[in-house]
């Protein structure tokens, strides 16, 4: 009914927009690069929560090569390097479940708050920890 929707209409004319702007003016080739570009500061993104699970960080020096993360990864995103007894992480396969960070005995894996990680370069999404 028009009488019911009118109050909502007036409320929304005078309230802040419910949506927020896309970080960049146009879709850049690499969003990650565009965001770190000092010449064109991006539109600020909504801050993520404390428990947000973003791109995986890997501390190679701490890793003991126990392969537990390889065992629990649902997406087979971790590859074990048998010679070096270390892993590499394919972040494009990662499903952000944080099961590897939970199971890691030396806590060399952690979830960052980075979420704009899409890129045309597959190799850029491989984390070697080096």
């Amino acid at each position, binding site marked *: *009914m028009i009488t*019911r*929707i009118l*109050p*909502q*209409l007036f409320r929304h004319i005078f309230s802040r927009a*419910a949506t927020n702007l896309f970080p960049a003016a146009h879709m850049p080739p690499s969003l990650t690069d565009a965001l770190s570009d000092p010449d064109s500061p991006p539109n600020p993104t909504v801050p*993520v*929560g*404390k*428990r*947000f*699970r973003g791109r995986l960080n890997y501390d190679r020096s701490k890793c003991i090569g126990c392969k*537990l993360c390889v*065992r*629990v*990864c*649902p*997406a087979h995103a971790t590859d074990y390097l048998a010679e070096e007894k270390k892993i590499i992480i394919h972040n494009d396969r990662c*499903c*952000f*479940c*944080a*099961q590897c960070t*939970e*199971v890691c005995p030396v806590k060399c894996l952690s979830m960052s708050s980075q979420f704009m990680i899409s890129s045309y370069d597959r190799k850029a999404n491989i984390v070697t920890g080096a």
Partner: protein
Amino acid sequence: MSTTYTVPIGPVHVGLKEPVTAWLDLEGERIVGAKIRPGAIHRGIEFMARERNPIQVIYLSERICGICSFSHVIAFIRAIEDLAGLKVPPRAQYIRTLVLELERVHSHLLWAGVACYTIGFDSAFHLGMQMRERVMDVLELLTGNRVNYGVATFGGVRWDVTPELAKAMREMIRYYRREFTPFREIVMADPVAQARMRNVGVLTRDEAVRYSAVGPTARASGLRVDLRKSSPYEAYADIPVEPVVPQDYFGAAHGDVLDRFAVRVLEVYQSLDIMDAALDGLPEGPYVAEPNVNKVLASLKKAEGTGWGIIEAPRGDDTHIVSLKGGDDNVFWWKVRAPTYANAVSWPLMFRGNELADAPLIINSIDPCISCMERMMVTDGGGDPLIVTKTELLERCRRKTFDLGSGIRTKGAGTGGLEGGTTK
């Protein structure tokens, strides 16, 4: 002498969220017959599960569906807990209930918004979508991410509800109690919305029984069915839940799209009450029985048998049956029966006598999740499409299960397993 034309809706159609084909027989604008042909979005998830261990399959089961992902996780986890005899601490049960209800709120709000969009009521669609952000924010605070929460694990949950989170949830409940009624009234009192939804896509009470409709679709036809009442799981044993049926609120159940809208909208209020009760009664104590994933995996490696998990997802009954073989890391077999599978057989009945323009609305009215529904695909390597009848399918299914080995004949065979899954 009228001519009957056959028109397909789908597999790709602006009114559909997921690919499914409805072949409609038309006489002029009137639908006289309908055939549903799924088969465009089978992904072979159960096959993928056979080369993964139960911990990995939790996150795989999340990806069966994007909207009711947590329902699938809980049904799968309950099936594993049933077969391995794992105990869940009370606090974890309450947290699971909270997330299940949060998910129901966001699923119903999304559906209500999309239903308005399907009838061309875009103002209400935007209003619904804007309101839904609030529950998504709470889900993000609680679990980290907006969809695919990854919050449940065997024997509990992975993240606790802190006092700040409880406060945020209470605020969200207050927000919905305040803001949701205007939305409901805007849509349900609107004469155009009523004209588009009243007596459209009718499924009578008897038909709902005969065609085994589940969830809000069955309740809109006047059936008092709700697994949260008839076989309580998690914290629903402590929190009374009454099935929401339209005759209690409006005097009579029409079983049409407007009733399905009303049932879902009223269930949002019910979910808010359940969340309030769950937050009031949130017990102290641990939120996971065994935090060490390695120990859980080792104990599941020894487990053998078949387990059942049946829960009330936002769309209806969601059943998972899992079998593990002792000494084997991976899931032996896993069957999923999503609510849309039960509701989709009612589609041809709902189409009768309606107009072509209402077809997308009728398809959307059961809140279909085709990705949930498509659990099998028959291929014979040839080029010809193959249609399998129900009896033949049942026979093939039994033969396949028998071929898979002794899983069905060990613990939990037949109805024994069903009781095991529902009496906890």
